[in-house]
């Protein structure tokens, strides 16, 4: 499995791509992205961040205003969508309502002038792959959302494209089904060795499925990294906020040396942090700490840990975890997640406790 495209020739390449719809504003601002063969890359971002536009340019439904898009080394800017040979799964599946499931799947093969027996074999094989083998004669409207989703996937794969694009394909499904389908899509993609470019605004989905995630905001890629790196080492406060849950403490950098930035929080507390994109003393910064890296039981902390006083505002029982909202260093929405274990105390609102974390879990980002 290719995790990074570095070193070998890229399969899909965006080269200084810009896109504007109205000639006044740029929706995509200078996109450079290489995707390796067999990679599962997710474009993640809030709506309006330009991720879907990037996907549509690759599919051929939008033209790049500037720059080149290459597929397998070939420039495809001026190739119409039907000649690109890229499979695509759409947000609401876009199954043709006037055709049966089998006819839907046979359509891409028919337009490729494949003969009938070969067509039928391939359609059946594709349906079996998504466990929909006995549904060939039904109409799309007779299927549930999850089943339609599977059929849409099978249709995008039946003509054996080497690149498949997915535009928020699980957006309309309920949570449980969505999770099942995430794994299923991932497994199918791995088994077939296809390259997938996946667009979503759901960060859990992105983390679960992808080899690499490109976080989009304001027409730019904010960070392009593997899921663990993205979560644990967000490179700016947008990514830190967008991926997973995050606590933010604001303050000013006092000093930076030896890979440690000393930050004076607005409340007056001094803490050690990892400097990520702060460069000099006096700069304002946002310090980010993940809720699950904060310890509410000071006795469990190592000797290097920071401790701060905190007041419990709210305690929420969530089954597998406890979620505690605290007042820390002047902010009222400092969240701590604790695993539900027998030796864990349930905190009471109003209680004052000591909380602490390791300095390396605490990252000083842009303000």
């Amino acid at each position, binding site marked *: 499995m290719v995790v990074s495209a570095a070193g070998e020739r890229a399969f899909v390449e965006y080269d200084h791509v810009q896109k504007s719809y109205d000639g006044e504003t740029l929706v995509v601002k200078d996109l450079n992205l290489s995707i390796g063969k067999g990679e599962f890359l997710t474009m993640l971002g809030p709506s309006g961040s330009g991720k879907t536009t990037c996907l549509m340019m690759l599919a051929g*439904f939008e033209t790049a205003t500037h720059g080149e898009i290459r597929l397998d080394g070939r420039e495809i800017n001026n190739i119409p969508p039907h000649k690109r*040979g890229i*499979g695509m799964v759409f947000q609401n599946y876009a199954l*043709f309502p*006037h055709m049966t499931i089998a006819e839907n799947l046979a359509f*891409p093969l028919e*337009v*490729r002038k494949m003969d009938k027996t070969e067509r039928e074999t391939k359609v059946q094989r594709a349906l079996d792959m998504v466990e929909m083998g006995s549904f060939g004669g039904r109409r799309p409207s007779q299927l549930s959302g999850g089943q339609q989703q599977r059929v849409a996937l099978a249709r*995008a794969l039946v003509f054996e494209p080497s690149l498949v*694009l997915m535009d928020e394909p699980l957006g309309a499904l309920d949570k449980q089904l969505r999770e099942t389908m995430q794994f299923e899509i991932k497994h199918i993609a791995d088994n077939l060795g296809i390259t997938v470019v996946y667009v979503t605004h759901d960060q859990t989905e992105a983390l679960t499925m992808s080899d690499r995630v490109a976080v989009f905001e304001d027409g730019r890629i904010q960070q392009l990294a593997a899921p663990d790196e993205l979560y644990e080492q967000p490179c700016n406060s947008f990514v830190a906020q967008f991926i997973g849950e995050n606590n933010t403490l604001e303050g000013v950098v006092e000093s930076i040396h030896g890979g440690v930035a000393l930050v004076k929080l607005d409340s007056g507390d001094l803490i050690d942090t990892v400097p990520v994109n702060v460069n000099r003393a006096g700069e304002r910064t946002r310090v980010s700490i993940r809720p699950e890296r904060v310890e509410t039981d000071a006795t469990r902390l190592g000797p290097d840990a920071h401790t701060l006083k905190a007041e419990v505002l709210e305690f929420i029982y969530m089954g597998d975890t406890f979620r505690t909202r605290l007042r820390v260093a002047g902010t009222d929405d400092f969240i701590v997640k604790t695993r539900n274990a027998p030796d864990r105390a349930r905190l009471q609102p109003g209680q004052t406790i000591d909380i602490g974390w390791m300095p390396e879990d605490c990252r000083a980002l842009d303000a």
Partner: protein
Amino acid sequence: MADLTADIATGSAPGRLTTADGKPLKAALAAAESHARRRAFFLVLPLLLFVLITFIFPIVQMLHQSIYNPGFTLHRDVGTGVKTPIMINVRNWFDENERGSDPDESAYAALHKDFLLLDELRAAGSVGTRINYDMSGTRSLFTKTARRADKLTPPFQEGFLAIDKDWSDPEVWAVMRGASSAYTANFYLAAVDLTRDVKGDVVSVDDNRALYVKLFGRTLFLSLLITFLTFILAFPVAHLLATLPLRYSNLLMIFVLLPFWTSLLVRTTSWMVLLQSQGVINDALVAGSLIEDESRIQMMYNQTGTVIAMTHILLPFMILPLYSVMRTIKPVYVRAARSLGATSWTAFRRIYFPQTVPGIGAGALLVFILAVGYYITPALVGGADGQLISNLIAFHMTNSLNWSLAAALASLLLVGILILYWLYDRLIGIDNLKLG
């Protein structure tokens, strides 16, 4: 409100659900909802009555009129409203003597008695009119005879022949025999260019008098042509309406609806201004030296005029259903087809077009049914050969006053449309119809 808790265990019959107090569930449900249902019924009652009085009743009346004409059997005095049976004696003679037997003295005697009554009631004209429907030129025979009937003495046969030799024409007697029953299928025969000969057999009318079958054919053909033309013109417009950004499509929609806000007569007359041989189009062609002044194109007072004007007038009825269907077709389907390898033409043909079929069906049915019964436009711009069947129905209603024939023609038209509707249901399915 009855407690609707179903309890199978206490149910009287196995599998029959009852409420907690033992009433059958179905009855309880009906009782619970009867109030709402009654209220709903009273809400639709005015409309129901309106439809019954203004739609169902006239249609039944028309169907009845097409097979019932008492012009030879019953006289209704216009002033007093008194109904008097007429022509009793000659009708009795017809009953006693079989078809084809020559009228003898007793027949003429019977006829004489009847004419005395006709003269007294001043009803000879209407009886003559009734006979005139089946055999033209006979009305005066009746009025003339009625005037002189009181002076006739036996033998009546010679007396009648002296008044008019036509009384010996076996056709007159055959037609009178046909009219002697108020219920008759003769009007339907006439409506399809058939008639009865002296022996009572059904034969076609002379070629130079055959009219209706040709007109039905022309109406059908022109209506299909107009439907097809509106479809060709409406499809791209509806597609634009459904896909353009809102502010352009709103403007376009106003242009589509504009004809609806203009009087039908104004629209038709403006076509007359445009199309007539001294009209705008011909003038422009002559001015542009495209045609000679002598050879101006005749676009008005013929079928061309009817087709052009009716296509324009009926166009919105095709555009609107098409638009309402196209609006619901998401562009993502065509995109999906393109991504699966279809050219834009294949995507249109295989994916977009089949999804518009319900709209095409609805529009075509609407336009066709409207076109088949269209009256004003062909009357104004159709000239002689651009007339449709409805113009002839109107002629029989207002000019010849042969309401029975008009009713028969209208009934045939109705049956024809019902057959087409049935065919449409069989071929495409009426539940596929989408009007909005």
